[in-house]
């Protein structure tokens, strides 16, 4: 049994795990810097707590790595069902930090099922797309996969957690593309969303209408289809301000702050200001470990999880940012490459989906700290503090290594 394990381990892509461990170490170094000067006892410090979280992460890794691929394939729908129930459970409990994200498991820390939903949805989707020999030229073939994604995404959006909901929805696009869906069909999936969003600004709506016309013209579907697509979207766009007007004032405000937290000048805008100052002040080489004045005067909010990159930027500089980005890029591109090489479609799709999750997390997290996109509370894989996500990240690593081995009888 153990021999078998080592055999399997040897054949897997160990460099992926190496990178994960390197990133975790980097995270711990930064957490230690944030904690320095804190008087509290060990178990209140995020550094020691993160070390503690590594133990369950290690075991989760072993399990996820060792489970045979066909077992994953067989039970994933059941797991998907359980997951839906799990993400509904927090709605029964009390709100924590005014959201329904956490399940209280009677331990000093809570548990966030939505983290696990991310990769469970990807695997379920991979099974569906590989089991059914879908005729990807047809648009209808893309519909059921979208429903698989939309159910959990909708629930999580209500928690409310826009960040995680987006992460759950995004992998479906590259996965469909990967197995041959026409880019035009993917365009059709995204179009209604853009129609609704641009409808509030007439110029962008007009530009969008032209883009839509152009794309439909290029794709050359039959006449009825093109006309109905175009006018369906225009109609949806025109309708959405009306529907918006029907909402109560506080409902509108809730939605607005979801998309643009900067409305609250004491909240997100302030965070971005502080984060940018910290990163910019770091320069090429940074101020050195434990020397970040912005960090240590506690100007930065949630610096241990969502804004950990600001600390990296301030204390270790541009060089460290580049190194982190290279590590992440290697991890992601390597996974995509494996997806290309692997022989069976299920594994290939799992790999594409998981690499999309990691990519989205990395991009959103980095981009938000420098104000490229609005603040979305998404942690950085392996680096950020947080038990559920660390566990989840290592499970994803294990699955990537697991399914990328040549399909023999492991």
């Amino acid at each position: 049994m153990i021999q078998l394990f080592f055999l399997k381990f040897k054949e897997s892509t160990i460099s992926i795990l190496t990178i994960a461990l390197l990133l975790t170490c980097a995270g711990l170094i930064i957490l230690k810097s944030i904690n320095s000067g804190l008087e509290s006892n060990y178990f209140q410090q995020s550094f020691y707590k993160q070390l503690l979280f590594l133990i369950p992460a290690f075991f989760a890794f072993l399990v996820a790595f060792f489970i045979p691929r066909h077992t994953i394939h067989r039970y994933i729908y059941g797991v998907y069902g359980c997951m839906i129930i799990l993400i509904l459970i927090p709605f029964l409990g009390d709100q924590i930090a005014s959201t329904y994200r956490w399940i209280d498991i009677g331990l000093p820390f809570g548990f966030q099922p939505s983290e696990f939903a991310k990769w469970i949805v990807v695997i379920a989707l991979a099974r569906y797309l590989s089991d059914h020999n879908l005729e990807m030229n047809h648009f209808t073939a893309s519909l059921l996969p979208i429903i698989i994604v939309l159910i959990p995404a909708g629930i999580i959006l209500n928690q409310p957690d826009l960040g995680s909901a987006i992460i759950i929805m995004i992998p479906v696009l590259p996965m469909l593309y990967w197995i041959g869906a026409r880019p035009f069909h993917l365009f059709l999936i995204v179009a209604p969303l853009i129609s609704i969003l641009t409808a509030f600004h007439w110029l962008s709506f007009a530009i969008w209408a032209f883009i839509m016309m152009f794309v439909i013209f290029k794709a050359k579907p039959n006449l009825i289809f093109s006309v109905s697509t175009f006018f369906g979207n225009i109609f949806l766009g025109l309708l959405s301000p009306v529907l918006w007007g029907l909402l109560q004032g506080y409902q509108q405000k809730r939605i607005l702050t979801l998309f643009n937290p900067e409305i609250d000048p004491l909240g997100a805008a302030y965070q971005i200001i502080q984060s940018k100052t910290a990163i910019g002040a770091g320069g090429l080489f940074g101020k050195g470990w434990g020397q970040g004045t912005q960090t240590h005067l506690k100007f930065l909010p949630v610096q241990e999880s969502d804004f950990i990159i600001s600390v990296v930027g301030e204390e270790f500089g541009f060089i460290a940012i580049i190194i982190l980005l290279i590590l992440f890029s290697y991890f992601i591109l390597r996974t995509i490459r494996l997806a290309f090489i692997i022989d069976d479609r299920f594994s290939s799709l799992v790999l594409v989906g998981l690499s999309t999750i990691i990519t989205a997390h990395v991009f959103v997290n980095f981009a938000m700290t420098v104000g490229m996109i609005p603040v979305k509370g998404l942690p950085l894989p392996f680096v950020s503090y947080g038990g559920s996500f660390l566990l989840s990240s290592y499970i994803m690593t294990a699955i990537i290594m697991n399914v990328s081995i040549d399909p023999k009888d492991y």
Partner: protein
Amino acid sequence: MLKAANLIPQKRLLVVSGVVIMLMLSLVIRFFYLQVYFYEKYKQKAEVNRIRAIPLNAPRGLILDRNGEIIVDNYPTYVLTVIPGEMVNKSKNFQIISQCTGIDSTILESNYKKYYRGRFLPSRIAKDLTFDQLSRIEEHKSELTGINYSQFPERYYSGKINASHLLGYVKEVDQTLLKNLDVEGNYLYGDLIGWRGLEKKYEKHLRGEKGVLFVDVDAFGREMGHSIDYQKVIPVPGNDLQTSLLIPLQKMLEELLEGKQGVVLVSSPKTGAMLAMVSKPDYSPDLFTGTTTIEEWQNIISNTGKPLLNRMTHGLYPPGSTLKMITAMALMEKGKINYSELINCNGVYELGNRQFRCWKEGGHGSMNLEQAVAQSCNIYFYTIVQRLTLDEWAVACKTFAFGELTEIDLSSEAKGIVPNSSYMNKLYGRWGWSKGHLLNLSLGQGELVVTPLQMVQYINILAMKGKAPRLHVVEGAITKEKSINYYSQKTWNRMEKFMQNVITSVYGTGKRANPNITGLTIAGKTGTAQNPHGEPHAWFVGYGEKNNELVSVIVLIENGGHGGEAAAPIAGRVFKFLFSTKENMKLAFTS
């Protein structure tokens, strides 16, 4: 199973990898831009200037009376805030502050915990500081890192009148409150939120919008002046609230009722505006502003008169004989009564084996409807009410809006109960109640209970002969009209004449409500409601008219005895106040 073979064209690999590389490159460019290209700018900013966001509190709107006189105001106080992350030695700091201000350091500590928002956000540890205390703190400023003070507009109740139940109060938002808050709007710890009465009902209107001031701070946390990079957001004060109250009248009535338990409500039937709203016992409206000692609080809580109870909206009382008009009008409209019909009252009425008594022991002798209303004869009404069924009677009560909300613009009110046959069946069983109950109910006793506000509505409907606007306290509040087309003009007029007789006839029970002012005609009715808590409750309801100006008054004195003796004189004082001088009439009736 895992059979589907995987054949991916190389193009797709290139596209997907390309997207990833593009995303990563955009990040690299952005970070390069910040960290290398603009390094100098940000370095300076971080070394010399740090930006601190200071919330600027917006004062709440004022509450005014009908002539623009201020009832509730704001006054500036100072609050002490602390930024936990900048504080070097917490216990030492608190000790110094405690010495300077005389505030116990355990209170500082508990406030610190209560309002803690995060290590980089200021949390409030003390409030209502005087200038003296502040200057002493300022002397120690060099030792106190992370401690700041700012102005805070505290709610101030002018003290001219209490009106505590009406005005309500504001509460400070703290951690536990914030968790359970279901009001829209962005509230932070230490903010004020309207919690009862007008303060709550008009919270959105009264509350201002906060501003933010960005200041630069040096490495020691000292403020270096306004930040140039970030614009100040100016706070927007809340809107003022103009009520329909008349301060001098309210004040007079509060003094008149001191030491009693009861309610006086004065309104203008033509508009539905409330001129005075007194519920006694009450409390000082600044009871909840945070300066109350535990002892004072204990006094309020343990007071058997329940000063916290808003008797106007939530006190449920039997209305007594003031309800007789309903029975009379229902019968008149149905033609079931003859105005010259005489019924003899000898003090006792027997129905089955039960005896019902008139309040006048010897009896009133033989009398018609007009005399029975004026002298409030019970026997007369026991006799005639039997011409109605319970449900007919209940419908008549509902036409005067009993058993439903008055929809006045206050945060909440009680509905009261108008029992009909299905209600009685539920309460006593199908055969458990009898005509005897109806006899009792027609005199406003028994299962029927009303709020004083409903009584105002009732008397306004009578005064306006069926078309009374809904009650309201705030000028400009949207009011619907409560209109009844159930009774003919003739019936209304006749009822008014009967009610005027209550005041003017020799034996009239409401004589003492009449201040004898020329040109003033008053219509009214007294009530003496039996209740299990001792002496009967004294009621007077009525309205006066002079020079086409109408005012309605209801008075309820708990356990006050006879309505004609305990309640009517207070109504007399109201009429006298409003109609005796031209100035007061002008104050009350011009808007």
